[in-house]
């Protein structure tokens, strides 16, 4: 996977800056996420794409949300959600159902389940599209780059294998 290869050799700082911009955009455009998270805004979520040599620690604090890019998840996160990058992204944009991904064992979850359920529901309701949000600041280049990224992280065959997705 080209994304995996690139993330193995590239420094993490540019990605962290990009995700920081993305998170600020999400905070201003989707404030309802934080309402739905309720007391779980104070939790630390470990997001672990199993096909990438890096992971993310998400702290969805209402006033100052933060995401940290790490090579491996540190101990002490409240909850961990692990799975292929395309599955994790597909859950956020409504392409995949989180419960179905759990039943099929494509994702693994552990830790504080209330926090996981709250995050899943908050994001599902928000219709946040992480790929679109992360390139929105690129202006006229946003659309072609978004298309390129979608091709890299969510090959169509994955959706068919899952037996889930937006079709039907």
């Amino acid at each position, binding site marked *: 996977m080209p994304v995996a290869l690139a993330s193995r050799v590239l420094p993490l700082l540019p990605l962290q800056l990009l995700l920081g911009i993305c998170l600020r955009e999400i905070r201003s455009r989707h404030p309802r996420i934080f309402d739905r998270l309720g007391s779980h805004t104070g939790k630390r979520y470990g997001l672990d794409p199993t096909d990438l040599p890096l992971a993310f620690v998400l702290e969805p604090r209402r006033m100052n949300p933060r995401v940290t890019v790490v090579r491996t998840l540190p101990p002490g996160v409240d909850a961990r959600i692990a799975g292929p990058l395309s599955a994790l992204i597909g859950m956020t944009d409504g392409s995949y159902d989180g419960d*179905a991904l759990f039943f099929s064992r494509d994702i693994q979850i552990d830790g504080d389940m209330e926090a996981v359920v709250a995050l899943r529901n908050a994001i*599902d309701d928000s219709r946040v599209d992480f790929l679109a949000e992360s390139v929105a600041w690129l202006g006229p280049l946003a659309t072609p780059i978004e298309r390129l990224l979608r091709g890299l992280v969510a090959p169509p065959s994955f959706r068919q294998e899952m037996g*889930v997705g937006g079709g039907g």
Partner: protein
Amino acid sequence: MELICPAGTPAALHDAVGAGADAIYCGFNDETNARNFPGLNFNREEMRDSIAHAHRYGVKVLVAINTFARAGNVDLWRRAVDDAVECEADALIVADVGVMDYVARTHPQQRLHVSVQAAAANPDSIRFYVESFGAKRVVLPRVLSVPEIAAITREVDCETEVFIFGGLCVMEEGRCSLSSYATGKSPNMDGVCSPAGAIQYREENGALISRLGNFTINKFAKGEAAAYPTLCKGRYQTDEGCGYLFEDPASLDATTMLPELRKAKVSALKIEGRQRGRAYIERVVKTFRHALIALEEGRPIPADELNGLSEGQSTTVGAYKKTWR
């Protein structure tokens, strides 16, 4: 037959409208509804806006206020009733006789449905709700065969609604105490079966171990489809061996029963899953909308299209065909 679809959030409600629902059921974000999960459900403003949106597309919204009110704290349930009426809900889905009485006395024009949580599984019971509170529809528990559903529908003076897809309660609904036994919380009183706060998952050499409270519910081998950690679908070690004592982890899928349910003259078909994501809502609702169109046009109905979304990745027709008899 009306297609009744779940929505746990405003976004899911919008998707259900777009996917072909005739009516959508949902609830407030508190313990008055039986899907009181973190981050789920509607505040008052969201409920009002969502009902208005559905009505613009000719879709009805049924508000579930279907837990049992606690003595000394009935105001929460009464307020939910008042607010749902004010939001112009097309019907209230209620289980508690005290709450039904409040609806009938305070809002006599409001359409009332008897929740599956009331476990009204015979004509006498249903007649009580119709005569006492003016209930217009009863959601039948998932313990009846199709001939039993047909017999009940013939005998009662209200519409019947049955589940056709989704999570399957094997106990008599509204009476099950398993979750309460294991965690202190139940769908009946708190709106949560096997609450997330009591669930633990652990990976061990590729196997997935699920626990609820102090109980190990299951151990799924590497690659084996997983399921919710509910006691009724746990895998138990007994003198006879290891297996599912009450029910296999599987979802209800009554696609193949649609012709018989139509013959039984049920009025409405319900999809379970307010706690599921938009991907589930859109796919399941569209699939059943297409199935109903095929039924109407006399075409074969495609089956087994939703296994990937099902608990344990398998489906059953449950009590609709009581093959064990």
